Each structure stands twice: as C-alpha cells, then as structure tokens.
C-alpha cells in the first residue's frame, strides 16, 4: 500500500480500488440489491446515502463478505478489489476481512481492556513478533484514531467503560490496527451525539490519506461534509453516483433530487 500522502485531489483520480459489476443480493426470496455497478476510488471517502431499507448497508457488507455470516443471504455478480474477484472460490473471506476492515453502526468494543481490543486483530493475524511490536501497533493505531491522549494512562481499563464516541473511535482504531486497505463504515455516527460525531468525522477526513473509506450514512449533511463521492441508493437500485458536489448541487435523477431536498426518506 502506498503510505505517501496523496497530492492529487481525490475527486480527480481515475484509478479504481473497488469495482462492482452487476451485483445482486438475495435474502431468501427477497431480491435486496439489483444490478449495482460502481467504481470506488482509492484514498477517498465514498458515501452511500438513501432511505432506510434501500440496501446501502447490505451492499456495503458485500464488500468484505460479511453477508457470508448470514445463512439465507446469496450474492451474485462480481466485486473486484485491486482487480481480484473477492467472490472467487479461491479467496478466503477471513483474509479478505483483514484487508477490508469494518466499523459498525453501534460501537461494539469487546468486553476486554482497551489494549486487548486494539491488539485483538494483530494477535490473530500474527502481525507482531513480540510485545514491543504489539505495543507499537496499539499506540500508533490509537494515535491515528486520535484517541491516544485520552486513553494512554488507562489502557488496561475495559473498553466498554468509555463514552459512546470514544468507543466508536476505539472500534476505528481496532480496525486500523490490522492495517487494512479499505475501511467500511456502517452509519458510524448514528449512535453518537453531535460533538462525538464531529470528532469521528474529523478522523474520517484524516484517515482518507491512507485508506479507502466507504461510509453508509443517513445524514446528508454528513455525506456532504466527509465524502468526495456519493452514491444514492433507492429500493435496492443504485440510482445515481458521482462527485459529492454534483450529487448535492446538480442531481441528474428526479429521485435523487427529491431525496436530498427532503421530499421523502
């Protein structure tokens, strides 16, 4: 992965990190996602917006194959990351998820110490050869997540004892600790108050330097604030996708316009 800060404007980039082609998702008999084609650029923030039940979270979860953990869920079509089809039988979903991290709607720190929460991923993937390296990973992950100053003196306290906003940043730090290339965020601020939300948004903006971020959000202001590109989903269909500025100022589709002007959803 290229650790160098990207000098170009994210919106001007033409390379592709993730490309989805004719993706269909079924829950039992329900056809939840229909014919989604999208290209996601590296080192940028892409926001998925749309009304509840439109399939944006479901589509997000196909990118790291989290839907595999649901019995009745079936995915068709192809999703490529760096040109490699992640639904190829040769791909190990467990390895994939180390490369494509995920942050969930509700902060879900493990009922362990702050240190153990961050060290969880590096430990199972054997990323640290000794305690010192593990300490380094933990402290650098917490620093990147902007949490280090707040917790450096209480790393052995339970992660569940922190405030909601801190818990969510802990979950982001936990995802960073396995050095993924892509981070998926499923409404990461919906359980947080405005101040905690602002901190997380600031963090997302900083993380853009090193990671490809896909974020599902219910708040259109949030999408406008943090993302470079925006995709609007409606009833399982990707209605419109483009630069965030275009989507919010000059939507091509009537449904997009109705949604962002608050006529439904």
């Amino acid at each position, binding site marked *: 992965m290229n650790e160098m800060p990207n000098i170009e404007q994210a919106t001007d980039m033409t390379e592709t990190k993730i490309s989805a082609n004719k993706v269909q998702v079924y829950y039992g008999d329900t056809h939840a996602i229909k014919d989604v084609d999208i290209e996601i650029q590296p080192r940028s923030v892409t926001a998925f917006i749309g009304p509840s039940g439109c399939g944006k979270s479901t589509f997000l979860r196909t990118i790291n194959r989290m839907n595999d953990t649901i019995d009745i869920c079936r995915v068709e079509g192809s999703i490529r990351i760096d040109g490699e089809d992640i639904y190829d039988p040769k791909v190990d979903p467990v390895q994939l998820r180390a490369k494509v991290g995920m942050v969930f709607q509700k902060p879900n720190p493990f*009922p362990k110490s702050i240190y153990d929460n961050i060290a*969880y991923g590096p430990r199972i993937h054997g990323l640290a050869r000794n305690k010192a390296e593990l300490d380094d990973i933990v402290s650098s992950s917490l620093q990147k997540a902007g949490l280090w100053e707040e917790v450096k003196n209480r790393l052995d306290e339970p992660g569940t004892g922190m405030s909601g906003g801190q818990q969510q940043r802990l*979950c982001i730090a936990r995802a960073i600790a*396995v050095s993924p290339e892509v981070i998926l965020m499923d409404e990461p601020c919906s359980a947080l108050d405005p101040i905690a939300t602002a901190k997380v948004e600031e963090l997302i903006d900083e993380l853009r330097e090193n990671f490809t971020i896909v974020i599902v959000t219910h708040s259109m202001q949030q999408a406008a604030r943090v993302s470079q590109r925006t995709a609007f989903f409606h009833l399982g269909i990707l209605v419109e996708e483009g630069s965030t500025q275009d989507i919010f100022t000059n939507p091509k589709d009537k449904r997009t316009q109705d949604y962002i002007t608050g006529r439904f959803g």
Partner: protein
Amino acid sequence: MSLFWLILIVLAIAVVGYVLGRARAMSSAGGVRSALHSLPSYYGANVAMKAAVPALLLLIVWLLAQPFYVNSDISAMIPDSAISDGSSRGLVLAEVRRAARGLDNAVAAGAMTEEFARNARADFNDITVRLKEAGQIVTSEITQPVLRAAQRYRVLAAAGNFYMTIAVILVAIVGALWGLRETNAQFRARNTVEKGVRVILIAAASIAILTTIGILLSLVFNTVEFFKLYPAADFFFGLTWSPSFSGRGGSSELGIIPLLWGTFYISFVALAVAVPIGLFAAIYLAEYAGSKVRAVAKPLLEILAGIPTIVYGLFALLTVGPLLLSVFGDNGIGIMKAGTAVMTAGLVMGVMLIPFVSSLSDDIINAVPQAMRDGSYGLGATKSETVKNVILPAALPGIVGAILLAASRAIGETMIVVLGAGAAARLSLNPFEAMTTVTAKIVSQLTGDADFASPVALVAFALGMTLFVVTLGLNIVALYIVRKYREQYD
C-alpha cells in the same frame, strides 16, 4: 362433618356471596353500570374473597394447631409408669392414636355402640377382644391408661372438629356479610380486589420460602440430636465408615471422609465427562450448526435430560459396568474387580449431565450480542477464534453458573450411585474400585427398621446437612465468580 364438605360449604358461601355482591352493586347504582366505580364482577369477587380467604386460613391454622393441643392433653394423662422400658412417650402416644382409630372404625362397622366406646368404666380386656373381633389390628393388649387416653382422644377430636366446623362457617358468613355491607356504587372494589390478589401472591411466595426454612430446621434439629450422641470431631474427621445396626450404634464408626471422597470423586469424573462434551456441543449448536440441524439436534439432546435417573442407573449396571469390566477387569488390564465402580457411575452421571451443561450454555452463548461476533469477523477472525477470544469470555459467567449447577446435581445424585458405584465406603485413588457417596448412604441409613433415636439413623441428617452446606457453598462461589469475572456487554 368431613373436611371435604366443610371446604365445599365455604366455597358455596363464597359463590353465593359473589352473586349477591354483584346484584347488590348493580341495584345500588340503579342498574346503570357506568355509575359504578368498578366492574360489577369486582364487587362480587370482593365479597367472595372476604368470605373464602379468612375462613380457609382459619381452617388451616386450626388443623395445624389441634393435634398439638390434643397431644399435650392426652400426654398428661399417661403416667411415666405406663411407659415400659425400651419404649418412649412418643411410641405410647402413637399407640393411643391407633387405639382411638380402632375404636372409630369399630363403631363405624357396628361392632360396638358409641356409648360403649365412650364408656369410662369399660373393661379394657373386653374392648381389646371386641376390637380384634371387629378386625381392627391391635398390636398388643390395650392397657388401662392407653384406653382412657384413647377415649379422651376421641372426645377431644370430635369436639375439636365440631367447633372448627362452626367457627369456619361462621367466619365465612361474617366475611360475606362484611363484603356485602360495604358494597355500594362508590366502593372501590377493583382496588380492594387488587390488594387481595397481592396478598394471595405474597402468601404463595412465603409458603415456598417457609418450606425451605422448615426443611433446614428439621435437618438442624436432628443434626444437633446426632451430635449429642456422637462426637462431631469423629464424624467430620473419621476415616472409617462402618455403621453397626446392632447394639444401638455403640460400636459404629461414622466418619464422613470416605463418603465425601466418594461423592467428590464420582462428581469429578462426571464433570470431566459432561463439561467438555456439553460445552462443545453447545458451541456447535449455537455457532456452527445451521438452523435445520439445530431444530432437530437441540430437542434430541434435551431428551437426555428427561430420562429418569433410575434408567441411567440400569444403564450403568447392565451396560457400562460390564463393558468397563471387559476392558479393565481380570481378562483385560486387571485393575477392576467388579462392574460397580467410581468410573461406571461417573461416566453415566456425566452423560446425564451433558444436556444440563449444553442446554444452559447454548442459551448463554446465544445471548451474547451479534455485534460482538460481527466485530470479530470484521477484523478477519475465524469462527473458532471468535468463539475462543470473544464469545466464551463474554459468556463465561453464565457457563460457570451452568457448570456449578451441574456439579450440584452430580453431588446430589443418588440412583446412579446406588446401582453403578457399589455400596462400599472406601478411601482409594483407583477409579475402578467401588465407592459410595453421601446420598447413597443417607438412603441406606434410613431404609429398613430404622430407630430414629440411634446415631446410626440420625447420622443421615448430619450427612444431609453437610451436603446442604457443601452445595450452598458451591452456589456462593458460583455467584462470586459470576460477579467478579463478568465481562460487561450491552
């Protein structure tokens, strides 16, 4: 009048009260339902409650108190000289009650008249003969004091029953009238009934608690009695268990250590079987099995819990014992003498405990929030890593609770031990030797011709008390572990 009819009469008064109360409420509101504070049925229920509940309470108290009064009265009639050697006042009183019942039956059968049965001058030899002729079993000759006491007993019992009937019916009627009197449109019958329901529920809860206290007290008193006859130090630290039923327990050695050793050894083997198998089965069912497998496998596993323990005992005796014997017995390795052994009982008991461990653990694992699993899978953990690092630590307090519950059952189990482990109290490390447990010995001390005044029988209560304290201690430890190591999640 028999108890059955008395209860029926009280209930009839309550039903009549219900109907009258309802009607009175309606008429007091001039037939307009909306003018009443409560629904008409609440007024009826109020009257019925006031008729039935106090009357039935009085009935229960009376039935409990009357025998005490009668016993103390007739006990005073029996002089010490009438109690022969080797007998006790309790036995003579039992004789009196038997004689009284014999007289009752004889009168009912027409062998003698009521006047004759009550006649204070009746010759006791004549009465004995007549009772025997009437087919009423009289163990020995009825003596003069016993006959007088029996006659007195009958008089007191009859009078008691008569007054009880009067009092109970009176209380029921007064209660009904009280309920009817306060019935009018403004009366808050609904609130009163609510209070009544509360009282009834409290009574039910108290009965459960009081019963526990009662059981504990009966154990305590008999245990104290035992320690008066047998030194406590010998009981708790004695290494030999050899009760001698002859000579009134004088030469018995009643050391609990061999029994406790057997209990813990067998329980340990049982848990060593049940905990890994049960826990792994629970993890499979909760985390790996598809919904179809789960729908079939879980009930099947729980069927194991429904098998009566005596059937497990037969399984141990007829199948597991001989099987182990063929491998470890004289034809095999040669360390097992007979089919009954610690291993036999322990293995079978372990099988019995599997569903307890697995079913409880399964529920607890399912209660771990899905968000924990998602978090772990999202970081690229496999299923078994997730189970080991996230789910088991989060479910640990509950699982420890399940294991300790299983341990309590293992310690209290009797039938499998009786059939599978033998009856020899022995201190040995060899799991292929016969041993026995506290519960099995309680059974053998109390069955047969037990004389409740001898240490050989009373020791059963001390054993029971020890067992009670041990399981109580286990539960306290379990609570402590659960509180201390709980990994909080929400």
